[in-house]
């Protein structure tokens, strides 16, 4: 398929207001095609609002969203979506649910759907309302995947699953990611597990995008600095201080770097993704600087 844009999903100044409250505002990011991206943020950060606008369930109040360069409502056949709590028609059997998928989609891989369900041991003749939560989530994912979408959007796919079902679900997703045919964006307020599956990150908090970029790049460019006390002035190699924790005798920083850290006064350690995410979520109330780390490692602060 030839696309005029390298981006599977692209938003520009996207915003949505409910009454007087902005659920999402000034949201601009791009997800390159082929990525498995995580959309993380606390409950109420605007993740669902963003996803609903990306699948054409909700019209933006301002700004725009593009799926492979076109409005979402024109990209329905290319977009797979699993809504939060994976809604299904509860009186339909599994087989009827698949039949619905086949009837409502131009592209439909019936073999893939049946093979997946067989492998998962989900019986075709059972009403979906009688399946376990994990099975329902898997069926919803199967429905979205059999559509053979180029972009797959999943809203909190693991939130309602027990640990075992969550592991199975993420494994299935990791397989999709490895094939590299599909761009995936999944939202989650649980940061653990995501690193194994995702290679791209969007941090959303307080209705604003806090950080987007390649996960390896993000981890590489964020460091924790520690020193007995903080000397005034800029620190060489530091683009921004994300989090600062200071006592009279000790200062700890979590920083984003833009060059080598040569200042010998600081002890430099690596940080994990979860810590970085938490640092960004923690600062979101006071500082709304938006950070974009492109896949080439170039940094832009807006």
């Amino acid at each position, binding site marked *: 398929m030839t696309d005029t844009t390298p981006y599977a999903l692209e938003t520009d100044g996207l915003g949505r207001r409910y009454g007087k409250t902005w659920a999402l505002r000034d949201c601009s990011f791009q997800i390159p095609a082929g990525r498995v991206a995580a959309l993380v943020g606390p409950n109420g950060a605007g993740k669902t609002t963003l996803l*609903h606008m990306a*699948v*054409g*369930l*909700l*019209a933006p109040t301002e700004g725009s969203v593009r799926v492979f360069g076109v409005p979402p*409502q024109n990209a*329905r*056949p290319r*977009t*797979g*979506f699993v*809504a*939060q*709590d994976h*809604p*299904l*028609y*509860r009186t*339909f059997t599994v087989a*009827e649910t698949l*039949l*619905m*998928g086949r*009837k*409502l*989609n*131009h*592209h439909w891989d019936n073999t893939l759907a049946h093979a997946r369900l067989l492998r998962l041991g989900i019986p075709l003749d059972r009403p979906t309302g009688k399946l376990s939560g994990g099975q329902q989530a898997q069926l*919803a994912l199967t*429905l979205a995947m059999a*559509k053979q979408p180029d972009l797959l959007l999943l809203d909190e796919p693991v939130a309602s699953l027990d640990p075992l079902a969550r592991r199975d679900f993420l494994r299935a997703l990791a397989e999709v990611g490895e094939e590299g045919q599909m761009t995936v964006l999944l939202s989650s307020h649980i940061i653990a597990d995501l690193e194994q599956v995702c290679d791209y990150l969007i941090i959303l908090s307080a209705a604003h995008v806090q950080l987007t970029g390649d996960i390896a790049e993000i981890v590489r460019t964020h460091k924790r600095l520690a020193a007995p006390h903080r000397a005034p002035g800029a620190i060489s190699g530091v683009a921004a201080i994300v989090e600062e924790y200071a006592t009279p005798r000790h200062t700890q920083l979590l920083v984003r770097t833009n060059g080598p850290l040569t200042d010998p006064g600081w002890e430099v350690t690596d940080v994990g993704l979860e810590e970085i995410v938490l640092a960004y979520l923690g600062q979101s109330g006071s500082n709304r600087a938006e950070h974009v780390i492109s896949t080439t490692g170039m940094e832009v602060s807006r």
Partner: protein
Amino acid sequence: MIWLTWRQHRAAIVVIAVVVAVLGVLFIVTGRATADAFQQLGVGDCLAHPTHPNCGTIIGSFRDQYGMYVAASTWLNLLPAILGMLVGAPLVARELELGTHRLVWTQSISPGRWLAIKLAILFAATLAATIILTALMSWWHSVAWNHLDGHMTPNMYDFEGLVPLAYAAFALTLGIAAGVLIRRAIPAMLVTFAGFLAVRLPLEFLLRPRLLPPLTYTQDVLTILSPLAGQTPLRGSWELSQGWADGAGRQLADSAVFRACDPGPGSTKIDLFQCIHNHGWLMYTIYQPADRFWLFQGIEAAILVALTAALLALTIWWVRKRIA
């Protein structure tokens, strides 16, 4: 999409079919009994030859025995409201409540098309059922009641011609629109029922009597007692009200008339009418004549079709713009 519509609404469509079948059997059974009685009691002869003796008694007895079916049939006026509540109101509201609109509207089909196909199929089912019931009731009326009461009285008018179709289409659309706007099935059902009555009752009781200015027919009361009384312009009309007037055309209160012509013990209807006649008073009837049937049906159906179109436009606009 046709499959999905059938799968989701097959229970409703089967119930509609069963209701039509049961009512059909009832209409055929009672209709044949009515037709037989109409002939055997000699009601038909009386209408053809009003001068036959005992015709007043014959017609009265027929009405006493078979009028109850007509009275019972007026409950069918609520059928469209029930359809709107049970099929229309949950159509979108139930999806919104359960979140399944997020499933079905993110397949390859657009919400607008989803709605269009569902509407088309449910409208077709509704109109088919209504056409069958209207045909059955028209036949049911034709074997006896149209000869006695014409087509214009509400008991006939409401179940013949275009109006039943228009009410069914309106009620279904009202239910769907209420479901879309309220987003919750049970409140939408209640609003549908209330909304249907809020249109239905004023249309019949306030607007229909005034669609065109009603006519007034004035007659000497003694002519009512004549066997040829049925041959007046009132025949087959919708009689709205009756009263008394003096020779100069001034209306008289009933109480004034009865005070002057007190029907004391032992006095008959004939004594009363003779007294009224002797005073020179006349009986007037305000009525909508029989020949306005199709005009009124057309106007009333047009009003309902306009309301239906407005509700449809609102529903389609909302689904396409607000959601998608």
